């Protein structure tokens, strides 16, 4: 009885998001219709949360099958893994949608707003399809639609040349990544005879080792592109920042996680672990991704770009967990493999929460101060206290500070890395514990990065008129921010809520994974620590004291201006200096006039960063393809005699081939 109702709720979710709301929005411009549609979007996502939660905690399985209708089997199923990600989508979608109510309202005219909402709703449903798909066909349909719809949302925001270029890059890389995903699905086909997940799972034992390796590589490549692992991340810092903030929140917070889902589904569920070196490959790529991601992030001054790079970093952390898990799997240590997987999945979930919170916060900032350039912000905390508080929560979470959710997942990954020492294999024994150092470095840099974000944007004096006149954002936005911040703190203090079901989820994916006592102990100790910290802090805060306003110390000079504050660029300078080899900046200083170097009229300074991937990998590749195309184009000379010659030559070649065959 109950199962039936969950089924229905899920169908309701799909129908509302995928059909009803978009139709209403497209069909009618009326305010009432829009309100209805938005209410349905929010409501159905709440329902989705419940559905997912029921499936996640109660292990119910929901199955919706459209196969009899569609040309290829199209079925959706919520098993535990899907439930986790469905929960992730819906949990993030609710606050984001609430936030968007006032964001879209402020930014767009009536018609475009309706289209935005329609695409928003469809985007959500496409992601839901991806994570609940039970057949390859359904998965791929959702996968492609997800990209398309997000690109549509980006283009609706505006279509300047630069934006179009970025969207183009995004679409192209996503398509190429999707091709890899398609290939990795289809590689099972000769053995499983259908793309049904169940049959793939059963057939995967019969797949020869070479094909398994190929599947693994393609899945890593395909999902890695979507996730944004370096050097396949090129699109991410370009596409995410230019979307409307709620959409960026969904893209960075949720869409990237579908790639994690896909990778876990493939490598853990289907393959049951890759070849022996797979873990090391993933681990090293992930370490590089995490480290470079955060280093690029810290050097950014555009808040949304910074957040996008930080997503790259967090994807690195997630894959670090996945790689660790694969190493343990390869060395037959399922308990620890399970723990690492728990860490990775939990971090995926946490990152969804705090990254969407951060992007929403960026949206709130742009709403209030009309810019997300850190160099033009400052002093927002006293002007937008609620936004500031929620963003502080997000910054703490993403920096991995205890009492916030980011810490818990990083802790689990740390713990599993440490456990590498119990393995017999020397490589793993050395590598995994050493990776602790890498993760620590990533964590330290992340903390530095988000000190900068919060410190520069919210503290001190405003650096521009707009920031000075910023006002607190409307209630809807605050509600969205508040919901996400609450969940961040909630999970941060009571991680047991998620850890326990995650452990049982992992036991399904990794046979033999017990309940590591670690998960229990961390869940127990954190609330105590929280109690101590909060108790002491509040007690100290309650002590009686007198306060007096005094001008900031300015070495005795009058008139400290906001230009004297440390800027975002200045803040990151030491780190950029130390890691300058990573950035390889293209600096260019032009002094005019050139013949009088000591009496310049103007000096221009330009520094372009992080283009080395483009220069080293993408440009040559693109140029290779384009030059091939141009060569072919020249072969199309326009001379009919040459055309005829082609035909004759083809014929002669084929006849020769025939002769040769004989």
């Amino acid at each position, binding site marked *: 009885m109950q199962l039936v109702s969950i089924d229905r709720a899920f169908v309701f979710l799909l129908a509302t998001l995928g059909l009803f709301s978009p139709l209403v929005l497209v069909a009618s411009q009326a305010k009432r219709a829009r309100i209805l549609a938005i209410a349905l979007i929010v409501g159905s996502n709440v329902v989705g949360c419940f559905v997912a939660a029921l499936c996640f905690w109660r292990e119910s399985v929901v199955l919706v099958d459209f196969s009899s209708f569609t040309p290829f089997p199209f079925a959706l199923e919520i098993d535990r893994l899907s439930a986790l990600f469905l929960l992730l989508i819906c949990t993030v979608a609710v606050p984001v949608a609430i936030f968007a109510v006032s964001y879209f309202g402020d930014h767009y005219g009536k018609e475009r707003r309706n289209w935005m909402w329609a695409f928003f709703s469809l985007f959500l449903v496409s992601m839901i399809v991806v994570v609940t798909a039970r057949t390859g066909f359904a998965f791929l349909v959702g996968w492609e639609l997800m990209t398309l719809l997000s690109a549509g949302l980006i283009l609706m925001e505006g279509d300047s040349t630069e934006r179009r270029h970025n969207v183009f890059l995004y679409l192209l890389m996503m398509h190429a990544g999707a091709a890899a995903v398609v290939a990795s699905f289809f590689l099972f086909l000769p053995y499983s005879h259908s793309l049904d997940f169940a049959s793939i799972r059963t057939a995967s034992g019969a797949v020869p080792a070479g094909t398994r390796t190929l599947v693994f590589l393609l899945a890593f490549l395909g999902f890695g592109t979507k996730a944004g692992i370096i050097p396949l991340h090129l699109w991410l810092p370009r596409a995410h920042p230019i979307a409307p903030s709620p959409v960026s929140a969904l893209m960075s917070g949720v869409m990237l996680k579908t790639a994690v889902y896909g990778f876990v589904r493939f490598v853990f569920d289907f393959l049951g672990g890759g070849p022996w070196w797979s873990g090391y490959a993933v681990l090293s790529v992930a370490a590089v991704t995490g480290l470079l991601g955060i280093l690029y992030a810290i050097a950014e001054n555009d808040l949304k770009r910074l957040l996008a790079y930080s997503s790259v970093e967090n994807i690195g952390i997630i894959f670090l967990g996945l790689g660790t898990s694969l190493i343990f799997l390869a060395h037959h240590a399922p308990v620890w493999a399970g723990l690492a997987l728990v860490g990775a999945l939990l971090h995926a979930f946490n990152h969804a929460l705090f990254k969407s919170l951060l992007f929403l916060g960026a949206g709130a900032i742009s709403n209030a101060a009309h810019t997300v350039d850190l160099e033009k912000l400052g002093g927002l905390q006293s002007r937008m206290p609620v936004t500031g508080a929620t963003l502080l929560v997000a910054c703490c979470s993403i920096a991995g500070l205890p009492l916030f959710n980011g810490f818990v997942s990083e802790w689990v990954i740390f713990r599993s890395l440490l456990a590498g020492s119990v393995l017999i294999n020397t490589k793993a024994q050395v590598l995994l514990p050493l990776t602790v150092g890498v993760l620590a470095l990533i964590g330290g840099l992340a903390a530095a990065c988000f000190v900068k974000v919060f410190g520069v944007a919210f503290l001190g004096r405003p650096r521009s008129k707009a920031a000075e006149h910023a006002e607190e954002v409307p209630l809807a936005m605050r509600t969205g921010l508040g919901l996400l911040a609450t969940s961040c703190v909630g999970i941060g203090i009571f991680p047991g809520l998620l850890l326990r079901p995650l452990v049982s989820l992992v036991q399904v994916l990794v046979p033999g994974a017990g309940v590591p006592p670690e998960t229990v102990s961390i869940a127990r100790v954190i609330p105590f620590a929280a109690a101590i910290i909060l108790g002491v802090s509040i007690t100290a805060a309650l002590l009686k004291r007198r306060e007096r306003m005094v001008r900031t110390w300015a070495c005795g000079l009058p008139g400290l201006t906001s230009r004297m504050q440390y800027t975002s660029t200045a803040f990151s300078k030491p780190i950029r200096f130390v890691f300058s080899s990573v950035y390889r900046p293209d600096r260019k200083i032009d002094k005019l006039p050139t013949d009088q170097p000591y009496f310049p009229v103007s000096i221009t300074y330009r520094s372009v960063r992080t283009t080395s991937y483009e220069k080293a990998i993408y440009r040559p590749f693109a140029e290779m393809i384009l030059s091939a195309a141009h060569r072919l184009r020249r072969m199309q*000379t326009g001379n009919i005699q040459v055309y005829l010659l082609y035909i004759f030559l083809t014929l002669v070649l084929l006849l020769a081939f025939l002769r040769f065959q004989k």
Partner: protein
Amino acid sequence: MGLVEIATGKVLSSFSVFLFLTILLLVVARRISTSVLLFSVQSAIIAAEVFATGFRERLAEAYVVGALILVIKVVAIPRAFFGLVDHLKTSHDVKASTTPTQSVFIAAAMIYLSYAAVHSYGQSVHVPEDALAASVALILTGAFLMVSRNKALMQMLGLLVLENGIFLAALTTTFGMPLVIEIGVFFDILIGLLLMGIFTFRIRDTFDHLDVSKLRRLRG
């Protein structure tokens, strides 16, 4: 009777030599009218071949086909060509992109090639090797003419030579296809030539020349 038999035999055995001759002459011809005349002769040889085959194999259909060739390829098409040349008021030069010496060597090479190509087939199909080689040589020559002659009219002529080759192949190997089909093919060729004629006029009108190698606006 004996005389006719002998004549038939002579025609069948010697016509390929004549065909090779026309090929060699075609590739060195400098004037369009010469080429057309050579094509006419070539068609006449083929027509004779058709009649001879028809006589020997007792095929009534072959006479009809032979007559068609005589009427269309030996008389009508050459006449139309001459008319076109007159109407278009174009120069009579074929505008070859190869020198006559090159052309002759290429033609000789093609004849050799066709023998080489036919050698293995001829034995498996049991047809006169000479005839088959001649047909292949005709196809190759037609192709060569189309590729190396810049004049639109010469391309048309090359196409016709090529078609002659195909026809000859059909004739020597299978004694021709069913009559209805054969007539349909002829009809198509006629219409095709008509259209090509229309297009040569249009090319002349729009471009003021008939050099197809200069029609290179559309490319890439």
